[in-house]
């Protein structure tokens, strides 16, 4: 029977939401045990991991802060732990994507990246060609090494009570890599790429002042603002806001399009969004074909009403 090890992602203090989402994926693989490994200087993330439903044990490996994020340091530790497991999983975040292939190479395993669905013990679904094709892959004999596209799964809830075990692996870690610094991006508004809510404006927004309205609403919602190419081309907003095939591909939980017709090229950038909402005056706009919720209305009336509704909440 399968024994699964999930490597947690955290920022030193808090568990990253990607961990609970990846756990949901891991739980779908038939298993006998499912353990989470936490590497770091503080036990706090390990304690939170222990509360996630379905976890058997949490293995806490203490590491100095400046090593806890380094793939080269974590790799030998994960390899050591993996001896007891049939599956090693990580969230496919920049942390997981950096670490896991190194582990896979050490285990002589063919890794499955970015899985979005589980199809059995060692069979998974994942996208290739920038989401244009979905493949079903089967991992070969040996340890299954896979990264999980966290946004494809809902987070597992808290309420469990696993034990946290401190594991001392006592391995010599490489010294050829040193962390010089981490510059956390600070912006008052959430980053378009990773925001959980995005409001996007198109040519229908009409101009810079229309986008000002959109920003006000976005701030109320804690949302990022994006745009269609036509809006960028018209000079309403800078080009780093452009969403679509040839620009940013995003997957927020909530995406609201104001005055965007929904050209194919734009939609390519939002197909993995959780809930798509469209506000457009043209009932035949193609955006309504993909929208989960559509509202045929003038955005200039909708935006103030939404602001009001949120204020009354």
């Amino acid at each position, binding site marked *: 029977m399968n024994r699964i090890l999930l490597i947690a992602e955290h920022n030193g203090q808090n568990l990253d939401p990607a961990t609970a989402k990846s756990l949901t994926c891991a739980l779908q693989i038939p298993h006998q045990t499912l353990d989470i490994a936490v590497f770091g200087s503080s036990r706090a993330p390990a304690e939170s991991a222990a509360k996630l439903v379905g976890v058997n044990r949490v293995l806490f490996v203490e590491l100095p802060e400046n090593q806890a994020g380094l793939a080269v340091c974590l790799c030998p530790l994960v390899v050591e732990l993996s001896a007891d497991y049939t599956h090693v999983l990580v969230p496919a975040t920049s942390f997981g994507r950096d670490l896991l292939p190194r582990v896979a*190479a050490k285990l002589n395993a063919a890794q499955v990246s970015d899985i979005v669905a589980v199809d059995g013990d060692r069979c998974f679904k994942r996208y290739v060609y920038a989401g244009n094709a979905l493949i079903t892959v089967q991992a070969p004999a040996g340890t299954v090494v896979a990264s999980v596209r966290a946004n494809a799964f809902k987070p597992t809830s808290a309420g469990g009570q696993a034990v946290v075990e401190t594991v001392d692996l006592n391995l010599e870690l490489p010294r050829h890599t040193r962390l010089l610094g981490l510059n956390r991006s600070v912006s008052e508004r959430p980053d378009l790429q*990773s925001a959980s809510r995005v409001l996007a404006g198109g040519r229908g927004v009409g101009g810079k002042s229309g986008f000002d309205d959109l920003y006000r609403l976005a701030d109320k919602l804690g949302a990022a603002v994006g745009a269609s190419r036509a809006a960028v081309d018209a000079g309403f907003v800078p080009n780093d806001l452009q969403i679509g095939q040839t620009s940013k591909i995003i997957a927020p939980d909530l995406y609201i399009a104001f005055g965007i017709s929904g050209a194919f090229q734009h939609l390519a950038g939002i197909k993995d969004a959780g809930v798509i909402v469209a506000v457009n005056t043209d009932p035949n706009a193609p955006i309504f074909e*993909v929208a989960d919720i559509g509202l045929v209305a003038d955005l200039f009336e909708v935006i103030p009403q939404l602001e009001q509704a949120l204020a009354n909440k």
Partner: protein
Amino acid sequence: MKILVAVKRVVDYNVQLHVKSDGSGVETDGVKMSINPFDEIAVEEAIRIKEAGHADEVLVVSIGSDACQEQLRAALAMGADRALLVKCDRDVQPLLAAKALQALVGQERPQLVLMGKQAIDDDACQTPQMLAGLLDWPQATFASRIVIAGAGKVEVTREVDAGLETLSLDLPTVISTDLRLNEPRYIKIPQIMKAKSKPLQMLDLADLPITETPLLNIVTTSAPEPRPAGVRVGSVAELVDALKEKGVL
């Protein structure tokens, strides 16, 4: 210092792909092929490092069919000095590519290996890390800035989810490149003509010392499911209710 850059031949990023109806893959007949865009950035960076006087040779390597010569010639026209094609007519999965590169590193002894962070066909994002692991070298993935610091060290700024992380690594090392590292140069006609006489050596994958390599089995390929039809609401109040119901407000 010698720099080895690995480039992969992939379907051009502008091409709209179609999944074959029998589920055996995507239609690639007659489709435009190019250097993987991330690899092109790696080639550019290697050439810039050489132009800055930190390297004396840029070697580009590709693993794949005969047709990969096209991409190698393009890299030579950009300014690489020498090319090597490891011929292999089957699907080159990341672990296999990493092992082939490991063997070449053994032969060529570069101090720096530059690779794209991910190939835009399989989107695996594995080969550079695997190569670093196999070689027991340091690794820096998703690089947006590379500074050769002297004394056998290199400083790399990485684009990570939290922001920008800076590492100092001892050479030799493997670095994988992200989009914002540089903008590849335009190729000029005189350089294309010059590239024709630069050395391009061919090897057979079977002739490299490679251990038994497990492979993923791709069972089927399908077109992604279209999103299910949604609902229309009549007012902002209804919209807010619907959003609450979906749990996103």
